[in-house]
C-alpha cells in the first residue's frame, strides 16, 4: 500500500513522463494548497474587511473613469460603442487581471524563496497562486460589472442578453492561457533579473495592441490577422461580444481561444519543466 508513494519520491534521472504535462499535473495535485494560499493572499489583502474590498476595486474604477473621460472629451466614440464607459469596463477589468497576474508571476519565486528552499512544496504552486489570486479579484469585481450592465439595461442604453453568460467561460479560457504564460515567466524570472521589466514593457505595448479601448472590427481589415497573432486579441474581442454587444461569440473565435490556451499551457509548462530543477536553488 506504500508503493504508490514510493514511486513518487524516487527521483530518477532523467525525469520521466511528458515534460509538458508534469507541471500541470503537479499543480493540480496540489490544488488544495493552491486554494489555501490564494485565500491567504486575499485574506491578507482584505484584512480591512469591506474597505479592503473597495480598494481592490478602486484601481480599475479609477482607470475606467480616466479612459471614459479622456476618450469622450478628445474623440467621439463610434455610435455602436456607446455607452463607452460600459464598453471599456469589461475589457479594462479583464486586462487588469492579465497584467497583474503576469507581473506577480515574475516575482513569485523571489517572494516565496524561504518556502521553496525549506519545504517540499512543488514550485508549480506559486505561479498558480499568483494567477489564482488575481483571478479571484476579477471574479469579486464581477458583481459590479453585472450591476453596471443591469443599470445600463434599465436605462435602455444597451439591451442586455443571455449572451453575457459566455463571459465567465471566456475568462476561464483566458485564465488557462495566462497560467501557461505565468509558468514561463516565473521560471525565467529566476534566472534573468530583467524579466519583470521586460514583462511590464510588453504588457504596456500589448494593452494598445489588444482590442480593449476599441472594438476589434474598428481595426482595418488587412491588419486584423496581424492583430489576431496577439494571443490576447481574440479573448478581448470575445469579452466585448459577450459583455457589451451581447452577441454570440463566433465558433472560430472559440476554437482560436481554446487553441491559444492549449499552446500557452504547453509551451509554458515545457519551459517551466526545463528550468524546474534550478528554481529551488536559484530563487
Amino acid at each position, binding site marked *: 500500500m*506504500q508503493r504508490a*508513494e*514510493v514511486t513518487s*519520491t*524516487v*527521483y*530518477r*534521472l532523467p525525469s520521466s513522463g511528458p515534460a509538458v504535462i508534469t507541471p500541470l499535473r503537479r499543480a493540480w495535485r496540489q490544488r*488544495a*494548497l493552491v486554494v*489555501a*494560499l490564494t*485565500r*491567504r493572499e486575499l*485574506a*491578507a489583502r482584505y*484584512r480591512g474587511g469591506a474597505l479592503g474590498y473597495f480598494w481592490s476595486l478602486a484601481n480599475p474604477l479609477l482607470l475606467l473613469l480616466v479612459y471614459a473621460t479622456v476618450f469622450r472629451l478628445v474623440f467621439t466614440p463610434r455610435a455602436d460603442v456607446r455607452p463607452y464607459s460600459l464598453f471599456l469596463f469589461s475589457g479594462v477589468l479583464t486586462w487588469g487581471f492579465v497584467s497583474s497576474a503576469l507581473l506577480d508571476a515574475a516575482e513569485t519565486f523571489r517572494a516565496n524563496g*524561504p*518556502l*521553496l*528552499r*525549506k*519545504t*517540499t*512544496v512543488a514550485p508549480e504552486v506559486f505561479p498558480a497562486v499568483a494567477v489564482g489570486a488575481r483571478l479571484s479579484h476579477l471574479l469579486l469585481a464581477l458583481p459590479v460589472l453585472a450591476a453596471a450592465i443591469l443599470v445600463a439595461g434599465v436605462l435602455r442604453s444597451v439591451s442586455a442578453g443571455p449572451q453575457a453568460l459566455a463571459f465567465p467561460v471566456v475568462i476561464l479560457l483566458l485564465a488557462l492561457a495566462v497560467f501557461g504564460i505565468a509558468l514561463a515567466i516565473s521560471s*525565467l524570472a529566476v*534566472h*534573468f*533579473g*530583467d*524579466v519583470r521589466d*521586460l514583462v511590464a514593457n510588453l504588457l504596456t505595448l500589448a494593452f494598445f495592441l489588444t482590442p480593449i479601448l476599441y472594438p476589434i472590427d474598428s481595426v482595418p481589415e488587412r491588419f486584423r490577422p496581424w492583430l489576431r497573432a496577439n494571443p490576447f486579441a481574440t479573448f478581448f474581442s470575445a469579452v466585448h461580444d459577450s459583455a457589451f454587444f451581447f452577441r454570440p461569440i463566433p465558433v472560430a473565435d472559440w476554437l482560436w481561444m481554446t487553441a491559444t490556451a492549449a499552446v500557452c499551457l504547453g509551451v509554458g509548462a515545457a519551459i517551466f519543466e526545463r*528550468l524546474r*530543477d*534550478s528554481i*529551488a*536553488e536559484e530563487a
Partner: protein
Amino acid sequence: MSQTSPSSRRAVVVDHVTKLYRRYGRKHTVGSLKSALLAGRARQSLSPDSAVPALVDVSFEVTRGETVGIVGPNGSGKSTLLKLLAGIVRPTDGRVAVEGRLGALLELGAGFHPEISGRENIEINGLLLGLTRRQIAERFDEIVRFAELEEFLDAPLKTYSSGMAVRLGFSIAAHSDPDVLLVDEVLAVGDERFAHRCLEKFAEFERAGVTLLLVSHDLALVSDRCRRALWLDHGRLLADGPAAQTVARYRERVAREEGKARLDEGGGGERGRGGRGEGRGDAGTRGRGERIGSGAATAEGVRLLDAGGRPAGSVPCGEAARLEMEVHAAAPLSDFVFGFAITTVSGTVVFGSNTDLEGFEPVQFKGRAQVSLEIPSLTLAPGVYCVDVAVHARDGAPYDYRRDVLRFEVTADRPSTGLWSPPRRWGFEGAIAWKK
C-alpha cells in the same frame, strides 16, 4: 509478494550521490534575458559557468525505524543532503530514494504568514507538509494542545512571540505523521522546556518506528539520541557508524585542528579568542573565556606541560602532565585558595580540586607566585578538555575565576568512549579465537 527482503526494510537509499551547485559568472548575475535573446544565446546563458560540489559520491542506506544523526562543520553538505532527501533539489548524479511518507522539518514555521490567524496558518502549514484538509481537521485540536496556543488561535501570527511561533511550527510538523522525518537543527531554537518536548516527541517517533534523520551541531544530543551517525566533511562521507564512535572521531578531528590553531597562536591561554572556528562541536554551550572576580588576586599564563616539561597542546593518554598558572596578589592576602578543574567541552566537570579541599591552610600570599598541579598519569579518554582555574577566598568569594582558559587534547592509539581510559588488560578463557 516476497517476504521481508532487505530492500523492503530500507527507508532511505542514497546511492553514489553527487550534488553540484551551479555557480554563475558575472554575465549571469547581471542576468538579462533581453541581452541573452538579442545575442541568441538564451540556452548558453542558462548553463552554469562552473559548479561547486556540495556532496561527492555519498552512499548509505537507512533501515526503517533507525535514528541517524548527521554531524559535520558548516558547509559540509548536511543541509544539502536533507534537501536531496526531501526532493527540494535533485542529485546531479546518483540516486536518492525515500520510502514512505516524508516529513521535512528544515525550518520551523517556514511558510507562516504574519497577517493571518494561527488557525489559518495551521491549515496552510499542514498542506505544505503534505497533509490533506481532512487530516488537518482531525488533528487540529491535538496540534493546538501540543503547542499550548488555545487562547491565541484567532489572533494574527504577527502578535505571537517567536517562541509561540516555533512551538506551533513544531507541533504541526510533529503531527504530520511521517514515516521518514528529516530534521535540520531545529532544536537550536526555543527554550529548554520546548527542547524537552521536542525530544519526547522524537522518542515517541522512535518507538513508533519512524525513521529519523537529524542534522545537529549538538554532539551530545547526537550521541545520546542516535544509534548511528554520519560525519560529512566537504561533501564527503568521512564516517558512518555507531553514533558514539562517529562523534568521538569528529571531536578528535576538531580538537586536532583547534590544537594546531592554538599552538599557532602561541601557547594560548590568553584572552580574545572567543568564537573562532565554525567547526567546533559544542561551541557556545559554555561561557568560553568567562572571567569573574574582584581582582584582588589574578591568575595568568595558564599552561599545560607534557612529561618533558614542554608546553603542549596535547598529551598522550596515560602520560604525565602538569598544569601551571602564574598568580599575582595586588595586596598581601591571608585568605586564599588556588584551584584547577578539567572539564569536557560541553561543560561536564571531569576533575576538580583546590588547595582548600586538599588541606592546605593559607598564611600569606603576596606579589607574584607560581602554582602547579602535577598529574603523574593522565588517564583521560581521548578527546578535548578544557581547563578552569580559580583564585578565591575560603568562603568561595572569587578573586579571579576563569572558565575554559585553556584547551588541550588527550590522544590515544585507539578510541574509547566515556571520559576515563584506565590502563587495562582484556582476558579471555574458553573457546574464543582472535586473528593473529
